């Protein structure tokens, strides 16, 4: 019984383990002829924190949409731990270990904070699994621990609808945390927050990015400099520059289109 539930060991493990956690190659998507993402390639190492920056309309969010399966690629490939993601459904991509935080807080308003976290707990994801899901001590302890981390332990029984904007953002981060993805994608995690919330969020993010790869879209340069291992600059759907923050900052092309004004 248990053996069927546990993930089976990877077949063909003798093949060399992929060097990159995520390999995006020649990725293109066009909407009615307009190429929102055009021949983009980049590679993310395990435990790397990669920030994608670029002016509005550069295709940053579209890249995340493509990776998490929300948008289907027109051409190119996205390999996550050697597995092609472009053919998988959104839920299968999540189950493979990719988590995504959306730009606007995306939580379940009608459920309590506890229930929001519970739904994100990575167990009982099939119809019958959900029907027979038991709220046992493991689930409870995990939810309480995470609620503590995201500063919401006193709000567990509150309906998510009544949280403040910042609290909603934290809740969504908590929902990702409980999902425990190996690749975490964050779309402007500190946008629209008060200064106090921003500081707390940065602290929170620093805590949760340990031990996983993170792909972040952010405009706040101070924040980017603080966390980024490497930066990829997108412009008009193409990779303009890539490298350490210092390198990118001094790249004349980047200064011209993005940092200059």
């Amino acid at each position, binding site marked *: 019984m248990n053996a069927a539930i546990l993930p089976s060991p990877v077949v063909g493990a003798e093949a060399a383990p992929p060097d990159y956690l995520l390999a995006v190659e020649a990725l293109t998507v066009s909407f009615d002829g307009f190429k929102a993402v055009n021949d983009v390639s980049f590679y993310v190492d395990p435990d790397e924190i990669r920030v994608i920056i670029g002016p509005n309309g550069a295709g940053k969010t579209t890249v995340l949409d493509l990776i998490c399966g*929300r948008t289907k690629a027109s051409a190119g490939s996205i390999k996550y731990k050697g597995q092609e993601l472009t053919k998988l459904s*959104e*839920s299968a991509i999540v189950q493979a270990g990719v988590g995504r935080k959306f730009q606007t807080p*995306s*939580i*379940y308003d009608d459920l309590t904070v506890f229930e929001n976290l519970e*739904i994100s707990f990575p167990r009982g994801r099939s*119809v019958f699994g959900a029907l027979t*899901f038991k709220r046992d001590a493991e689930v409870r302890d995990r939810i309480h621990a995470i609620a503590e981390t995201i500063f919401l332990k006193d709000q567990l029984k509150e309906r998510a609808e009544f949280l403040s904007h910042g609290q909603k953002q934290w809740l969504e981060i908590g929902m990702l945390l409980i*999902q425990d993805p190996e690749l975490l994608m964050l779309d402007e995690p500190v946008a629209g927050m008060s200064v106090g919330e921003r500081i707390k969020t940065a602290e929170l993010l620093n805590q949760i990015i340990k031990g996983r790869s993170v792909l972040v879209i952010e405009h706040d340069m101070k924040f980017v400099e603080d966390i980024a291992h490497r930066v990829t600059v997108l412009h008009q759907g193409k990779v303009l520059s890539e490298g350490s923050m210092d390198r990118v900052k001094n790249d004349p092309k980047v200064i011209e289109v993005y940092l200059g004004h």
Partner: protein
Amino acid sequence: MTNPVQTLTKSVTVNDNPFMKPVEWLSLFLLAGVILVVLPLMLDGFRLNLVGKYLTYAFVALGLVICWGYAGILSLGQGVFFGLGGYGMAMYLKLEASSIENTKIQSTPGIPDFMDWNQITALPWFWQPFKSLPLTIVLAVAVPVLFAMLISFAMFKRRVGGTYFAIITQAIAAILTILIVGQQGYTGGINGITDLRTLHGWDIRTDSAKFILYFVNGGLLIACILAAQYVKKSKLGRILVAMRDKEDRVRFSGYSVAGFKVFAFCFAAGLAAIGGAMFTLQVGFMSPSFVGIVPSIEMVIYAAVGGRLSLFGAVWGTLLVNWAKTSFSESFPDLWLFGLGALFIAVVLAFPNGLAGIWREHIEPRLTRRAKSLQAPEPAIVPPHGAPAE
């Protein structure tokens, strides 16, 4: 048991997600009491049978609470599943009533009379399984559920939802009615399947049989309420609510949305089918007039009036609307449809959560306030901790 604080915290952690809250248990006992004790004592056989008929619609309304209220999938075609369940049962009963002995005046004895009238000389293949009672009981639920699975899988996989889904279910209700009416020789046509007599040799037309069937129906309804409560209370129930709110987000929590929607729709179809089968048994016939668009929409109104988020509300709503329909249409048959329309508009505009919403928002708070004011002095009377009371 020595430390009251310890027992208190323990009970809090254990009971934070009980199967049913005390008030829900109370509602269940109240409903069961009314259905199984009060009404049988109060009403004569004819009226009780009428209530039994209404209660078969309550199965549909229960399904709609899960499917529409919780999962947000509005189906305007529940009559299809009610009808398929009802027809399944009617086919069995009809075959039993069409023994060679009973039908010896026909040109082909041993087949239902309407087939004989339509120059059909052998029992069609899809009627064959309905010779067996166990098989009939299985098929009366399985056929509608599989049909629901087929429809919903095809649509939800392609992410067709909302209004489009509602319109398609309505179209299916219309198509099935036309099909049944058109294929008179196989289905009994517009008249339906009538003149049903016995269930495995037990005459269902007698008063005592009707009385027993009423209780079987009531018992099944309570069982279905508990089943629906289980679904509602499970994590699946919360996923349905999450889906209703933000379908896309649920995908990114790692769930395949289509599968959950298919489940909700099939669950509702299964309940409707049970109702349909019980309808045939109690009323003694089945016809296309319970399959089409009008009955399907009426069923949605039962759930809406009772409250689409409340299982008990849906049952009360069904009883109330049907009681109103019967008493109203006895005196003003032409006006009933206007009354029904007005009721629906009133529900949508004035009390969107139906009777259950009125109860929850206006009556329950008052009751709890009163209960609290009665309980308030109590803690002072309770002796301080550890006092040996006995």
